[in-house]
């Protein structure tokens, strides 16, 4: 009986091995997409080191390569990165043009993603980018209405729930609605942490800290800014960390901790001097 059972197990294992052997190895991404990924990495590296203007050509090339490969969702993400780089380089006009391109491409990306059984992020990305650029121009009402039409229902790993909430928090904060801003920032922080979007999580913490200052909750605000500084230390965001330390100095002074305020200011200046 045992021998029969062992024989059956052996047969089953053999059959599975045979089937696995028959299976075709999954093909890697096409060469055009590999090249696009390389360009995106190059652009990302330039952007993160503060050379947004150098990131623009690489990210533009990434867009072309994605389009040439017929990868519309990938092209949409590359367009978004390109717009952010153009915005980072101070070219708001180019960023607006790229945002329009993204808006035009979003329906095709939605259809292609649906055919592949995936959820399209292009619509959310387009709405978010339009709102961000509107907010940059000081039109917070337009930004809020653009975000209101953004789709929802993304997976936890998606960066969009967190980014949308964080931008809502920024809009509410700019309009002086501190409690609402705090609620959006906290929701955004949770979503960003779930999506491992650390830079956006730090941004949500920064916004939550500012909202708490507006509400007079200084101790909680200090905790938020300290958490943001901790994240920026991991990310290497020097300028942003210097800004957070300035906020911490203000809070410490308000709480009567003059020595702490002096140390925070000293450290902020040292970091700002490095950059």
């Amino acid at each position, binding site marked *: 009986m045992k021998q029969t059972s062992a024989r059956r197990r052996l047969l089953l294992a053999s059959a599975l091995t045979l089937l696995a052997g028959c299976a075709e190895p*999954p093909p890697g991404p096409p060469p055009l997409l590999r090249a696009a990924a390389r360009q995106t990495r190059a652009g990302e590296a330039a952007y993160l080191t503060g050379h947004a203007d150098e990131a623009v050509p690489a990210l533009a090339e990434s867009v072309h390569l994605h389009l040439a490969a017929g990868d519309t969702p990938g092209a949409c993400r590359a367009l978004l990165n390109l717009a952010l780089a153009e915005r980072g380089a101070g070219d708001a006009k180019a960023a607006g043009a790229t945002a329009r391109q993204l808006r035009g491409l979003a329906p095709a990306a939605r259809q292609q993603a649906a055919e592949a059984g995936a959820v399209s992020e292009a619509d959310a990305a387009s709405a978010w980018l339009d709102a961000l650029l509107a907010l940059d121009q000081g039109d917070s009402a337009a930004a809020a209405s653009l975000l209101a039409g953004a789709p929802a229902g993304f997976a936890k790993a998606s960066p969009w729930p967190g980014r949308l909430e964080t931008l809502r928090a920024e809009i509410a904060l700019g309009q002086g609605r501190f409690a609402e801003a705090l609620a959006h920032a906290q929701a955004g922080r949770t979503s960003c942490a779930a999506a491992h979007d650390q830079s956006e999580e730090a941004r949500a913490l920064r916004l939550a800290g500012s909202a708490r200052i507006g509400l007079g909750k200084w101790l909680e605000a200090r905790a938020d800014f300290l958490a943001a500084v901790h994240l920026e230390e991991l990310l290497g965001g020097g300028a942003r960390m210097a800004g957070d330390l300035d906020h911490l100095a203000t809070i410490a002074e308000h709480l009567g901790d003059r020595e702490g305020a002096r140390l925070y200011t000293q450290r902020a200046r040292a970091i700002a001097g490095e950059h």
Partner: protein
Amino acid sequence: MTALLQADASWLRGLRRARLSVVLTVAAVAGIGSYLGWKEGWFTPVESFNFQTMSSKSLHKGMAVHLSGFKIGQVSRVELQSDRSVRVEMALFRQYLGFIKADSEVQLEADLQLGGDPSLEITGGTYRSLNAPPGATLRYRGQRQLYDQLVHVVERIEPMVDNISALFNQARQPQGDLQLALHNLADSTARIQSWMPGFLERTDAALATVNRAGGLATNTLAPLAQPDGDLQAALRDLRASTAELRTALPPLLSDLKALSASLHASAVRLEPAVDRLATQVPALVDEGKRTTTGAGEVVDAVKDFSLIRRKIDLPPAEPLLPTSKP
């Protein structure tokens, strides 16, 4: 001179020992050979049987022949016939001839085993059949190929998958039995919850009304029972009936009261459970819906393997730049 030609005694002893050693070695080899031959059945009396097949694939001389897992002989010859068929002769041990029936079949056994030698298995053979005489030709049943066996397995599994799929699909239907059952359970619980608190008050009110009606009836009938002519006689019966009613009513009322108290106690005991259940039912319904939806997606994904392939083929998402300016 003689002493020089005479063999040395020590040399002679060595020679004898060498001769003895050679004899013992030969005897040991012969003994081992005989033992192994006996184990292999070389000295066991055998009878020859044969069968014909269209191919000698996997068949070879010396191949074991089994019956119910026991080795009962081996293939002694495999030869190609003039009509391109293959004749296979088997030498079966004489002691097992009683198991070889005229309707026994020979088949190739377990060629799926990795590293194992294929063998022949004699199957079938009813007790009522006559024994096959030595030299008889047995029927050969070809072994199915691996692909055929896999197809056979797949054919057996396919209806099971279809049934499971149908089950999941049924569970996913908004108007399906499971969904309806969950919906009805939630609905019933909500109705019980809304009905239960008022029921006890309504029961108490009904009992109070009956009591009042009984009192009023007594008060009305008492004056009528005064002795003033025929009416008294007419009413006497009515009074007797009323008295009977009054006698019968208190136990009935007490029974109703006891029943009401029992219902009240049960309701009090049930209420927390109903409350708990009522809060859990919507979650359970949602969970059930999610589970069935998830199961349905798994079934859909298994059924549509190309969906999985497309997802595998999707290139990994590229990084997203941070919003904050560096």
